[in-house]
């Protein structure tokens, strides 16, 4: 049976959920929350959502989508362009290679996977920024950011899992 046009549109929109979520999260990262110092340690919401969807629906998070999301994120934040696409692509390679462990078991295991991803991202961003500025930055804010990102992951994952159940599965 061939799907009707409406069904096709519906399907396309549903398939775009992960991408749209990631886009919205990276926009939310930009909002000035007017809390002293929060800008310094703003959790990396895009990394969280991209990781979640790559683990759970890698078919809807192809490399091209991740690359585009990373690029837009870097252009928005005004950060070193290329860092986020590189991180997301490497994250995808890591997730895909470990997917059998990450996707099926308990949540704790995928959280552990995220700990690795967030830590590597923190180290990379610190090293890259230090390299570009030609001096060593204070790593404390990066460490805080990584911790906050890791700590908030279960919350965000839970929220998006709800969406996944309702819209995609």
């Amino acid at each position, binding site marked *: 049976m061939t799907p009707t046009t409406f069904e096709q549109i519906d399907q396309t929109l549903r398939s775009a959920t992960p991408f749209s979520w990631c886009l919205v999260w990276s926009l939310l990262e930009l909002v000035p929350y007017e809390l002293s110092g929060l800008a310094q340690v703003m959790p990396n919401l895009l990394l969280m959502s991209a990781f979640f969807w790559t683990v759970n629906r890698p078919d809807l998070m192809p490399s091209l989508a991740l690359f585009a999301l990373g690029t837009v994120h870097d252009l928005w934040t005004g950060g070193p362009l290329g860092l986020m696409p590189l991180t997301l692509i*490497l994250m995808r390679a890591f997730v895909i290679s470990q997917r059998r462990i990450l996707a099926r078991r308990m949540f704790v295991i995928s959280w552990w996977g995220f700990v690795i991803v967030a830590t590597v991202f923190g180290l990379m961003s610190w090293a890259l*920024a230090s390299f570009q500025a030609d001096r060593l*930055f204070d790593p404390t804010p990066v460490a805080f950011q990584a911790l906050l990102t890791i700590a908030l992951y279960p919350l965000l994952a839970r929220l998006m899992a709800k969406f996944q159940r309702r819209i995609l599965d």
Partner: protein
Amino acid sequence: MLRKPRSRDGRLADTLLGFGARFSLFLFITLAVAMLVVGRLEPRFLEDSRAVLADLAAPFLDLVNRPVEAMDKVMTWGENLVFVYRENDRLRKENARLRSWQVAAETLAVENQQLRALLGLKDIKATPVTAARVIGQSGGRFFQSVLINAGRRDGVAKGNTVADRNGVVGRVITVGRHSARVLLLNDLNSRIPVKILPAGVNAILAGDNRPHPVITFLPEGVTLNAGDWVVTTGHGGTFPPDMAVGRVLAGDGRTPYRVRLVADFDRLDFVRILAYEQPAEDQGGAP
């Protein structure tokens, strides 16, 4: 390496571990690294695409900001309620002190005006372009910039000075149609010529991503006191002269002096955008 036969139901293993996947991994990593290199040069088209994307994000951020701002107002209100007595006491004292200053300031203003008239000095003033709301932060650890909801449409141009009610905040670095990005004074790339009063010495205020920027190129042997005023000089043509920037923090004699900025960086909401044209006779070799 796993090798599985290609199946048609879209199972992952083969699509992801096959040659195509490895090739795309390689391709995208190369692309990202290339972007890192090209991005370092900050070419013109990058600036343009940043501006276009910021324009696209602006309406959304504007919308999201409202509840956040409302929340912030409620919190401030609560805070004010708790500290109302202590605050009142402090303000009373401050008011008394300021009154005496006001008299001094008025006398000086009159005298200043008379002397200027005597010398035939031309007033160098910045022209206000517009006011704007801060709608986005950089969200980064290594760069300090904000997004404002005014752009080319409102007359904002690259290089314009941005200030809040207390003092200089930074300068405009990219301009979109209805949004612009402002490089804050404490960003690593921010270097502005300043004058320190009352000593009257010129120096450069350099950001290093920490809350308090550093005074560099201070003439040898000059000692500053905590609380000395740091103002813009107008050299280089970006910032209008004599705008308040901050006050010198107590130094330890070994490390360079740092400056507490007067603009409220923790709570940037509304800002003024100023255009400043350097007087013609001043335009020497400065770019």
